[in-house]
């Protein structure tokens, strides 16, 4: 192999390490994460209430800028601070004429989170089918796991072999209900410590969403018969105390729905929020018996919606822009592009070139002049090469040129 070719390979190798390593070090030194306030809708004041966490003097205010004391803030959120207010004897008996029953308050609580990594992470493709009508209060391990792609198959834990009988029972129930294999996806809650079990929601090959669970050891399979305009993209199961709904359905347009239990039928109710991007947006829902507070956060900022708990229609919303990260400012000045392998929104290792700002090209240009005229080898050809290389690869390129010794004549015989 030609000596110059090996030199170029080495240069590229060191440059790639530098394109990742140098910005990573600068990022560690400069990154400042956005501190978003905690936001919750006040059922009393009908405003979104903010609790800032950046150490400012008056951390409590509403979406119109009115500042509150700690005590006033607690009282404005009775459905959030009900324990504290009950202890203080300050809990209202009713809000807007609706009696506040402590039991109802508890069972209507909703706490849900979604992060993009949920749909961008490696899965084993195995699931656990719990008994949905257990004889005891606690869920018990079924003694097998199942796979569901081209067909449903249960694998016995003692023998590590197929449980033919159970597999055939569920397979025939699925086919009888109209399920078309292969399955596109199957989502449910695998955690045994959940309060109750509702099995899985699975999208079949024809974009039909099915509810699958095990009741008294028998398969329960039902087509949810969703409106054909809803194209399911993801489902996240949530066990809520009042069993009002099964979980959250995200469609391909980014609309979010709850799938309500409606007398044996499945009723999708759309949340009154703008479409979310499943690949980039974090979602947090904190609900109480009167209102739900929905926060959608991404790189640009955090949008918070208040929805009526019954209709899920929008009552109010606000937007908090992301504060500029020092790292972004620095990167935009010195790295026109850099390399990353991991992202917060994706659990896979994927190399990605991140472009920042054209302004950073000036940095490359200045560095290229410096390298070409002051540092690199004496030959004109070498100067031109070093200059162009630094212009393209910037700091990482310059570092590579300094690390890798340039070839000299008299190459290895035969190399």
């Amino acid at each position, binding site marked *: *192999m030609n*000596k110059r*070719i*090996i*030199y170029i*390979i*080495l240069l*590229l*190798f*060191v440059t*790639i*390490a*530098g394109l*990742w*390593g140098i910005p990573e070090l600068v990022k560690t030194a400069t990154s400042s994460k956005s501190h978003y306030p905690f936001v919750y809708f006040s059922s009393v004041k009908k405003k979104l209430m903010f609790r800032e966490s950046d150490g400012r003097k008056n951390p409590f205010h509403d979406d119109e800028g009115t500042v509150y004391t700690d005590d006033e803030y607690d009282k404005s959120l009775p459905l959030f601070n009900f324990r504290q207010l009950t202890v203080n004897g300050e809990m209202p008996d009713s809000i807007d004429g609706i009696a506040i029953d402590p039991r109802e308050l508890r069972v209507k609580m909703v706490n849900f989170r979604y992060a993009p990594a949920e749909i961008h*992470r*490696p*899965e*084993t*493709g*195995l*699931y*656990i089918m719990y008994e949905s009508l257990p004889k005891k209060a606690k869920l018990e*391990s*079924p*003694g*097998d*796991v199942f*796979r569901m792609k081209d067909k449903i198959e249960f*694998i016995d*834990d*003692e023998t*590590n072999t197929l449980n033919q009988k159970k597999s055939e029972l569920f397979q025939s129930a699925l086919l009888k209900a109209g399920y078309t294999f292969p399955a596109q996806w199957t989502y449910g809650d*695998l*955690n*045994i410590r959940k309060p109750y079990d509702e099995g899985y929601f699975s999208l079949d090959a024809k974009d039909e969403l099915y509810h699958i669970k095990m009741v008294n050891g028998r398969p329960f399979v039902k087509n949810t018969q969703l409106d054909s305009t809803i194209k399911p993209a993801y489902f996240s199961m949530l066990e809520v105390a009042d069993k009002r709904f099964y979980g959250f359905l995200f469609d391909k347009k980014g609309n979010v729905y709850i799938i309500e239990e409606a007398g044996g039928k499945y009723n999708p109710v759309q949340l009154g929020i703008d479409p979310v991007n499943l690949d980039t947006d974090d979602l947090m829902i904190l609900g109480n018996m009167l209102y739900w507070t929905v926060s959608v956060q991404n790189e640009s900022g955090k949008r918070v919606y208040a929805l009526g708990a019954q209709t899920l229609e929008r009552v109010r919303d606000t937007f908090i822009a992301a504060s500029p990260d020092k790292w972004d400012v620095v990167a935009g000045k010195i790295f026109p592009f850099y390399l990353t*392998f*991991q992202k917060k929104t994706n*659990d*896979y*290792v*994927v*190399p990605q070139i991140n472009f920042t700002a054209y302004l950073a090209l000036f940095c490359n240009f200045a560095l290229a002049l410096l390298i070409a005229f002051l540092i690199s080898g004496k030959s004109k050809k070498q100067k031109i090469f070093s200059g162009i290389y630094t212009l393209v690869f910037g700091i990482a390129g310059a570092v*590579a040129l300094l*690390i890798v*010794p340039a*070839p*000299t004549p*008299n*190459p*290895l*015989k*035969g*190399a």
Partner: protein
Amino acid sequence: MFMYQSIIYKEWIKTRSMIVLMAIVFLGAGIYSFMKIAETGRLMGMINYWEGTIEKGVSFFEYFKYLPLLLGILLAVTQYVPELQFKRLKLTLHLPLPEKNIIAVMLAYGLAVELLFILITVPLLLLGLSFGFPREIVWGAFWLILPWFLAGLAAYLIASWICLEPQWKQRVLDFIPGAGVISFFFMGVKAGAYQPFVIYLVGFILLAFAFSFYSAIRFKEGKS
């Protein structure tokens, strides 16, 4: 042909003690891993072990995480440090063969040893696991350990590059990007997360094969 066999025999003489030692370490790590897996299965119950693995991710064979890396570095050190002592490499490169072929045979020997360890260890680990776990979990274990074993090949080539480099200052400079690239193989992620990245790791390994030739060229040019 005889000459090549002689080079290979010389490499074997230099490395055999280390190879035997590492084979014992690999065997020990394998036996201990399965003892731990069997113990966890007994204490938790296999179904709970399965469920834990499905829910939280595969985490078998942690003892193997840095072993292929260690093997790669030790192989390079035992092969090339004696060559650099008293500049014996000069004698080796004076054999009546093209120098590039001599270096290629030495590198191929080291890679073959590392590959032999991989091709024996990985299938045995997965085969053992398949007796107690469904194929999806075995597959997950494969994806988890694959980057660690590939790191062994990369570490061997990068360590060879550094060992053959004649200048100490340059060795230190080479170590920095070398260590950076080795860290690409250990990003501490879930089993399967490397699926889209393995092809790039293989690319790095193929490129790294060329590095030692550059060090040898510099040695030949009398850099010291």
